[in-house]
């Protein structure tokens, strides 16, 4: 997770020793050059995202080759497209399932601010649900713009201090921020079905015509 810390008077952050800084730089170099994107292609930006992964723009050159579709294996969530309230729970779940360190790029205006849709169904910016590292305007942004965003994110990662942070202990401000957006309660009128990955069903109960979904039967 990106965390910008204010620079000290000497131009370096607090308790910076040469070795610690170099170790951090090594970790950051490894992380920034192997960002594995989790493409959350929701709508039109998803097509440009595919074009970015495709042969002409090719983010594999920047190390972001392995676009795995499982959030557990990714560290960069690219929210590409319009997020609706119905999809919000799923989006937040995907973010929560990603292991640390993770970064989020809000691709396009719909995920940055809701875009051209100020309607009853659209989340006005994915930063309502999760912290965002880079916002990319455009409808959709050109793949060139997305590569620029990736490079900006790499510069942001360079400024992080992971090992020193590890030594220092968890950042309370960050924890609080995470906790704040971590417990995401959907309002009752935007209820989203929460089916588990797989549910064994009693065939007799199923034949009664009600859907057994997740914990117990959800009244439809």
């Amino acid at each position, binding site marked *: 997770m990106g965390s910008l810390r204010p620079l000290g008077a000497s131009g370096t952050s607090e308790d910076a020793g040469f070795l610690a800084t170099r170790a951090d730089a090594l970790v950051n170099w490894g992380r920034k050059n192997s960002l594995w994107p989790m493409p959350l292609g929701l*709508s039109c930006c998803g097509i440009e995202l595919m074009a970015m992964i495709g042969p002409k723009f090719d983010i594999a050159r920047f190390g972001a080759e392995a676009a795995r579709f499982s959030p557990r294996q990714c560290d960069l969530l690219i929210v590409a497209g319009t997020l609706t309230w119905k*999809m919000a729970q*799923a989006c937040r779940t995907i973010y929560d399932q990603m292991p640390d360190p993770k970064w989020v790029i809000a691709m396009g205006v719909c995920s940055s601010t809701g875009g051209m849709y100020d*309607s009853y*169904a659209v989340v006005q910016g994915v930063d309502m649900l999760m912290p965002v590292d880079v916002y990319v305007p455009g409808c959709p942004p050109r793949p060139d713009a997305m590569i620029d965003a990736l490079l900006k994110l790499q510069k942001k990662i360079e400024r992080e201090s992971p090992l020193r942070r590890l030594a220092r202990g968890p950042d309370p401000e960050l924890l609080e921020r995470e906790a704040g957006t971590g417990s995401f309660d959907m309002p009752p009128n935007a209820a989203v079905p929460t089916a588990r990955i797989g549910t*064994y069903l009693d065939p007799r109960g199923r034949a009664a015509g009600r859907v057994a*979904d997740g914990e117990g039967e959800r009244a439809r």
Partner: protein
Amino acid sequence: MSGMQTFEYAPGTLPADLDPDDPLHGELLQLNVGPQHPATHGVLRLLVTLDGETIRAVEPDVGYLHRGKEKTCESLGWRKFFPHTDRLDYVQPLMNNCAYALALEKLGGVEVPPRGQEIRVLLMELSRISAHLIYLGTTGIDLGAVTMFFLCFSERERIYDLLDAYTGHRMNNTYVRIGGVYADVDESLASAIREWVDSFPAKIDEFERMLTGNRIWYDRTHGVGVLGADAARAWSLTGPNLRASGIDFDLRRAEPYSGYEDYDFEIPIGTAGDCFDRYLVRIEEMRQSIRICRQALARLERSRGAEFLAEDRRYVLPPRDKVQTSMEELIFQFKVVTDMRLPRGEVYRAVESSKGELGFFVASDGTSQPLRCHIRSPSLMNVQAIPLLAEGRLFSDLVAIIGSLDFVMGEVDR
């Protein structure tokens, strides 16, 4: 049709023939596919009930991309809704623009000049090819032919370059206006398009070489998801899905628009109605689209210099130089932008898009605020047909069926 035929529409309910004591088939697994899943072509959620690998029931759950477009049209007004139409079926933005413009022109009684129609035909066929390339690329990669994704997207990049040069944007161009198109196609652009059009049939041959005779592709698509002709009609399917089941119905022939009656092209019809036939129909449609593009380019060559945007001051913005010099034109500009009214009434107009019949049902009460704009979405009907085709088949056939039905969630959910 004889007799009172009703259909048992009951997706997601199971036959009661399950024996819970049967060690092999007594238990069902309900698997949640989506809404985030690479193989569902967008945010579609499927509740699949499985007996081992056999699908007993599929229930599509849509709405994860519902952005309230029909409501937005009522708030924004007719002209400002054009950018929203791009983002319906976002792999063929100009086609959606044209469909919307045709509906408004029908209600308003506007004639598009011939050159405007020719440009529209060219843009629509480029969009159709673009959409079919998405189908080919994503269905290919879903079924394991990873190279198809890269080949098809590489070709799409060339279409994007042409559209970028013409409209200034790669996709979501919003370049169609009531009465024509925004700007003319000049000679350099036309020659660039002609160059690409000449090179593309060889690429289609390459795609066919990779897939049509390919044993794996054939085994995964032949006999999978067979759709009968009666079922296709009853389930409101249109477009390649309908034609692959043997029904000869194409709106470009049945209800021609934009001058399609003067173009020379064939409509590919399938026989078996399976995934393989749908694939072949779309490949052949791409070839026929190239044929139409060539004719459109030839006509554009002949009509160089003609007007491409109608001069209807009720709906069309006057040229900029006139606005800045003439009071009357300034007032027209003002009225079109702030207070454009369509006559009272309701019309429905549809085009043959890459997914099927894309139509706009527009109703106006004579004021500048639209009364209703309903978008008839072919992709919604395609999603609805997933249970019809997939129930009883294996789970891996579901991926082939979803790919071959070809829908885009922006259009399903609107």
